[in-house]
């Protein structure tokens, strides 16, 4: 709240005294302002509530309201700040408390009804430990006794958070806080000290690769665009994150929109673009709003517009809401969409750096890639290269979802193994179940069996092993997951999202889906044509997948068969079980079989009738029972409890 009141005059003050002060040594007066913004020193207690989309989904709005109510009722003075997501979504809603001079304490699963109790303890300086996630150790603050350090929490311990380090700490709407945290220093440094080619060369030295999926070297794109002679050039930020189960970009934008804007500004300067577009998924209401506010503030403070800081560099950033098409993640399709056309990919070459948006040279970069850029310029390419592996420098964000204990957003250095992510950061599988498979890289990524979970995250290794890094979806499946059901789910998604331009993709994904549907449901009869076509289906599936892969134009079609191919490679026996034995070992494909009671063998003992959890069996004592088709869920309990083997599977 303090920051908000001062917003008007403070930004200008900070730009003059902090941003333009290259020595990094401030007078005591300025240092005090900076420390206040960094919350090293507090005038009064601060309450943080994580209100990213995931937090709001878990009820953070009510938590925030309850906290406000508590302060009003008890007439307490404190700042209530809305922050982005720290990444531990399974512990949401999160509420943090920081008293002057004391370390900040995080509380987890703080639903509205728990707020009063927790704040009561905090304001009385006695934290009992209930709902505590941990406290943040820092030099400036005294630790609370008996509360574990958040840095020691296994979820955070193995992470290397360079992009997420201030998400959940910084108020996303505050440009002042961003400047106090070295924000815009990199941009100003580039603008004042480096010619564009130097910026490109720094990014080249850092080895930064595009985080959108392809892992293409960012500097190559930039250099090609920079060197092409054209009066107009564009930079496009791809924030159209449409992989189901992935939300890295959303969290970055919601947590700290200014860093993305700074990254775009640096990229625009490096390639000589005067106009940038951010293409963001329209469903991301909160991210769109935060970005829009941040753009307005950056413009007001002079970071955008004409002749920025008297450098002669102009930049306008336009926000475009992507109206929902998975294929628009492909760069040529995205460009078409911005131009106001159907988002359909085209053949390359010409590449976007030759002929992109409105026919002009264009760089398309992903949110995560661009967010790395200010850090690379600020700390130097060697710092960035020191993180990760030789081939892949830096960190990668993953949205860890599925059956692990901890789910959420994790940032890990390249070189870490999937095993470490799942078992150490993710805390292993829920309810002590066994790891069966991992899907990495979104719907068109690869399925990996548990035995291969030792693979290391690295663009080189992934390429060698024909795996897809994708944008960062990481889905963990336990042994209660049916592989065919998952593959069917992915293929259904892809066949719906195919833009329809190329026949192999449009028709092929549809056929793959039909085959998968056929082998996961019961045939009307077990003989003749239908049975043959089921059998044929599994024979043809691999062939079909290969044809789609080889003959499609864009990334969507080329990668769409991946789930089928990788599932056939590692889980072929499950396909065969479904086809030949009509058995689903995870008991997910319940339509594969049907139970019927044999009127001859049924003695009318009533056991199955009583045990059926769905009341799907009728009949009287000593008379043959009957299963009511519409109510039966094929759970198989009647089959197990029948002592007379009177239940048949058909």
């Amino acid at each position, binding site marked *: 709240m303090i920051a908000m009141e001062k917003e008007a005059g403070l930004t200008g003050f900070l730009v003059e005294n902090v941003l333009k002060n290259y020595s990094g040594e401030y007078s005591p007066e300025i240092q005090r302002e900076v420390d206040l913004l960094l919350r090293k020193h507090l005038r009064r207690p601060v309450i943080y509530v994580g209100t990213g*989309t*995931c937090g*709001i*989904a*878990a*009820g953070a709005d009510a938590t925030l309201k309850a906290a406000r109510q508590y302060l009003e009722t008890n007439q307490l003075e404190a700042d209530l700040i809305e922050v982005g997501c720290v990444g*531990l*979504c*399974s512990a*949401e809603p999160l509420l943090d408390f920081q008293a002057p001079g004391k370390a900040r304490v995080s509380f987890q699963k703080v639903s509205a009804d728990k707020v009063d109790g927790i704040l009561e303890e905090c304001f009385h300086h006695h934290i009992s430990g209930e709902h505590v996630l941990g406290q943040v150790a820092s030099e400036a603050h005294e630790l609370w006794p008996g509360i574990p350090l958040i840095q020691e929490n296994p979820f955070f311990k193995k992470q290397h958070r360079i992009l997420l380090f201030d998400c959940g700490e910084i108020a996303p709407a505050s440009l002042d806080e961003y400047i106090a945290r070295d924000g815009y220093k990199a941009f100003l440094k580039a603008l004042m000290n480096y010619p564009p080619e130097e910026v490109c060369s720094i990014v080249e030295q850092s080895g930064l690769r595009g985080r959108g999926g392809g892992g293409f070297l960012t500097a190559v794109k930039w250099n090609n665009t920079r060197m092409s002679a054209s009066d107009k050039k564009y930079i496009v930020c791809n924030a159209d994150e*449409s*992989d*189901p*189960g*992935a*939300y890295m970009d*959303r969290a970055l934008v919601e947590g700290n929109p200014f860093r993305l804007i700074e990254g775009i500004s640096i990229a625009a300067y490096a390639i000589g673009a005067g106009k940038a577009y951010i293409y963001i998924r*329209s*469903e*991301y209401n909160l991210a769109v709003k935060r970005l829009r506010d941040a753009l307005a503030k950056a413009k007001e403070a002079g970071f955008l517009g004409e002749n920025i800081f008297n450098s002669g560099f102009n930049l306008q950033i336009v926000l*475009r*809401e992507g*109206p*929902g*098409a*998975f294929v628009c993640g492909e760069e040529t399709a995205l460009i078409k*969409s*911005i*131009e*106001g*056309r*159907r*988002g359909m990919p085209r053949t390359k070459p010409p590449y976007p750096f030759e002929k992109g948006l*409105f026919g002009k040279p264009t760089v398309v970069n992903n949110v995560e890639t661009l967010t790395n850029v200010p850090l690379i310029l600020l700390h130097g390419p060697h710092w960035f290269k020191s993180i990760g592996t030789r081939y892949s420098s830096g960190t990668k964000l993953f*949205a860890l*979802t*599925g*059956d692990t204990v901890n*789910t*959420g957003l994790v940032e890990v250095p390249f070189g870490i193994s999937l095993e470490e992510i799942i078992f150490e950061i993710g805390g292993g599988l829920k309810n002590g179940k066994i790891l069966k498979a991992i*899907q990495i890289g979104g*719907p068109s990524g690869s399925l990996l069996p548990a035995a291969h979970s030792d693979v290391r995250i690295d663009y080189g290794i992934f390429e060698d092993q024909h795996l897809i890094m994708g944008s960062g*979806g990481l*889905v963990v*499946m336990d042994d209660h*997951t049916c592989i065919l059901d*998952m593959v069917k*789910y*992915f293929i259904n*998604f892809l066949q719906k999202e195919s*833009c329809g331009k190329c026949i192999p993709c449009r028709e092929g994904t549809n056929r793959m889906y039909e085959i998968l549907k056929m082998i996961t449901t019961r045939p009307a009869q077990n003989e003749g044509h239908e049975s043959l076509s089921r059998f044929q289906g599994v024979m043809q599936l691999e062939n079909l997948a290969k044809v789609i892969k080889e003959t499609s134009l864009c990334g969507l079609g080329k990668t769409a068969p991946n789930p089928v191919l990788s599932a056939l490679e590692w889980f072929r026996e499950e396909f065969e079980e479904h086809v030949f034995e009509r058995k689903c070992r995870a008991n997910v494909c319940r339509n594969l079989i049907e139970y019927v009671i044999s009127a001859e063998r049924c003695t009318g003992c009533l056991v199955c009738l009583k045990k059926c959890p769905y009341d799907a069996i009728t009949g009287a004592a000593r008379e043959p029972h009957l299963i009511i088709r519409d109510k039966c869920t094929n759970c198989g309990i009647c089959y197990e409890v029948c002592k007379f083997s009177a239940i048949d599977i058909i």
Partner: protein
Amino acid sequence: MTEIEAVLHSYQNRDREYLLPILQDIQRIKGFITTEVVVAVAAHLKIPTSKVYAVASFYDQFRFVPFAKYQIKVCNGTGCHIEGSNALFEELKKQLEPKNGNQFKSDLFSLEQVQCLGACGNAPVMKINEIFYTSVTPEMAAGLLSSIKAQEEIQ
């Protein structure tokens, strides 16, 4: 000036690139895109009506029928799929099916499975209008529906 005319008026630059923002603005106000909207936008941008419709129908965001009072969106992202969003969807469908001849007014409820809502950590997730519900079991969903139905005085 009608609402649509007001939107069009705010776009004095008639480049093709404003087609999607214009449609989005109109949908934000009207809730859906009508034939009149398509014709008016085409005239404003001086492009064929068929092209406007082609673009609008390509993207998931644009609707051509009005919204129901309670829009139920069940997330079918990967995380939610694994955690049983299909069972949740089936239950809701069952609950909304006409029973004993009593049919809901079609403008009261709409039910759809949607792509990832981005709250995978608390799967399965559903949304009724703008309110999120997390870790929803079929029983919870049925309870939610019956409280809404009670509110609307429908048996």
